[in-house]
């Protein structure tokens, strides 16, 4: 198969975008639809009786800051990769992955704070939507963290040296996407009450 697929690649050299990147973009489209479904449910539900709101926990502001910085580090990681500065590249990858974990931890702190102020799963207000929407977003971040670790472990492998930029580009595009998605969701939660 290796060989036959290689033939495929040769005929595809004139194509502008690598198929794996293209798969990612369509995947992003479908993730957007999922969150569009949930946020429109939120908007519809807001008009109905029994809607409750909450005070935004401060942890969410910190997590937003962290994920913004992590977008910068993944960008620098890609840049270092292109410059073949592999040690710097690996450090930045690792930094991004840990910031992803820190983001998830802060989200969890935010959830816990909300829960302690009496906003549990009982009810049907903004808080319950927040748990589900932000929870699903955190799962998507976790997927990105796993991908980062996979790329990191591959980069540490000294036997196989790869200067193929596609995996790095795919991971970093996805990472920027989950970052932007959170910014959208955060602004949405702040504005639409």
């Amino acid at each position: 198969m290796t060989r036959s697929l290689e033939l495929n690649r040769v005929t595809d050299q004139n194509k502008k975008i690598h198929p794996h990147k293209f798969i990612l973009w369509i995947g992003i489209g479908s993730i957007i639809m999922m969150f569009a479904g949930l946020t429109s449910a939120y908007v519809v539900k807001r008009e109905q009786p029994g809607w409750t709101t909450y005070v935004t926990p401060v942890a969410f502001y910190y997590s937003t800051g962290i994920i913004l910085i992590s977008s910068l580090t993944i960008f620098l990681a890609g840049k270092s990769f292109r410059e073949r500065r592999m040690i710097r590249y690996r450090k930045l990858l690792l930094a991004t992955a840990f910031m992803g974990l820190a983001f998830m931890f802060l989200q969890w702190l935010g959830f816990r704070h909300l829960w302690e102020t009496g906003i549990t799963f009982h009810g049907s207000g903004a808080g319950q939507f927040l748990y589900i929407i932000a929870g699903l977003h955190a799962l998507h971040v976790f997927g990105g963290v796993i991908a980062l670790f996979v790329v990191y472990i591959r980069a540490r492998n000294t036997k196989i040296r790869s200067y193929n930029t596609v995996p790095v580009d795919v991971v970093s595009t996805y990472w920027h996407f989950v970052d932007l998605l959170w910014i959208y969701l955060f602004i949405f939660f702040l504005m639409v009450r």
Partner: protein
Amino acid sequence: MSTDSTIHGTGEVIVSHDTHDAGPEVHHHKETFITKYVFSQDHKMICKQFLITGMIWAILGGLMSVLFRLQLGYPDSTFPWLEDILGKWAKGGKIQPEAYYALITMHGTVLVFFVLTGGLSGTFANFLIPLQIGARDMASPFLNMLSYWFFWMASVVMLTSLFIETGPASGGWTVYPPLSALGDANLGSKGGMDYWITGMALFVVSSLLGGLNYITTILNMRTKGMSMTRLPLTIWAILFTAILGVLSFPVLLSGLILLLFDRHAGTSFYLSDIFISATQKALPNEGGSPILYQHLFWFLGHPEVYIIILPAMGLVSEVMAINSRKPIFGYMAMVGSLMAITILAFLVWAHHMFVTGLNPFLGSVFVLLTLLIAVPSAIKVFNWLTTLWRGNIRFTPAMLFAIGFVSMFISGGLTGVFLGNSTLDIHLHDTMFIVAHFHIVMGVSAFLGMFCGVYHWFPKMYGRYMNNTMAYIHFWVTFAGAYLIFWPMHYEGLAGLPRRYMDYSGWSSFNQFGGLNRFISTVSMVVFAVQLMFVFNFFYSIFKGRKVISKNPWQANTLEWTTPIRPGHGNWPGEIPEVHRWAYDYGKDGKEFILQTEPLGADEQHH
């Protein structure tokens, strides 16, 4: 993205293809039983896995319908053998109400999702995309393999739900809350519903992984010269199907996640202060809206019917042109109408909700958009008929099924015009009329399209032909039987006969249909038996069918017929052929057919 290593060969030794002479085998890597038949990354094997899994589901789903038709046709009789196979669900040889609801729910779920989405798209998208666009395999063979195995896991979960103590989901295939959220109100809403949600979540993952791959492969991996307007219509149809799936299935997942939280975490997205008579208690929930679920469900649910019918349309278009020995009539109109249907599919979901208390003004907008779908549908129908017109028709089994598809699609489409009217819908909603409508227009039609595809491409899949005699019997009994089953249901529906009831004999106004129901039930059993004959024909022909001896048995133009009779992984032994013309040069310049790989003649115009 772990296929990078295979596609780019990072660190692996790549044999240069330049030294390769066109031998019969393109792949020299070792294949074990596991990598060839189980965890295969070859799109052709994945296609067969989808097809055979889909067939198993179709038999199970069809058998369910035979069981509940038995109840509907003979509501007063008892069948002791039913107790032998169903146990407590058919106490005393009579299907219990819970079992009846479970049967119709699972019949719908299985046929809509596991057969006509997974089985149909999974089979033909996998098989035809690389072969017809001229690619070695999918953009990501690994994701493609995952797509099948998620489908397999979804199947296992759904199948398991049939055997748990409280039975499978039984609130209808749409699993509307509050019923689907309240285990106290309905036996099937206990564990069975969790299995249903889990199974569907896995199914959504499967169809997303598949869809991403289909779209990417079609847009990025076409061979040299294969411009979009040279693609066979099968590929266009599959492309739009995949786009619909990728954009609508995630919304269903959102809706199901909220349902899961309502069931187990105590949230009130769909549930409100409902009083349940079984427990004599009111729910603590407040402010939930079951209509919200319907919006989320039908935002998938409506595109879903096009996900089912578009691939069938593509298969039929291709088979019809080949066997009429004529170019498809109005190629661009066919593509345009597919696109129009895809766009409109997202704008009509509320026509399933006309009687939910929807604002009548909003309803009228959805009526307009719904009836607009008649335009692209009619364009397609007229193009098929004009393709047949004065064609040199070869009535192969595949061609008969293609023509049968058009007949069914017209019949079912016309009743759609009735149902698209919000005023008429007040009367027709939830009656047998709607059951008749959607079974004809998307159930039977899609099945005929699928059979058309199986008969036509079987020689490419297995290097043998299916038995024609059995195929003709299969066609005529299925075609006539489908009309005999569903045509009378329109009359029942117009008379107000509600769907999902297990016994109409208690109503004097519905008593008149006792004989008709027996008739429908009898025919449905005959038709089911003939499908088993198809299954026999299929498996028998894999091993004993007449062997294909020429590369291009149907004398068709598309690229899959330029591969060896039994292509290996990689499809073409040498270079991938270059394409010089569109797929429909039949009966041109005195030649019966001209392969897409044939260069343009001096006096020919670029298409």
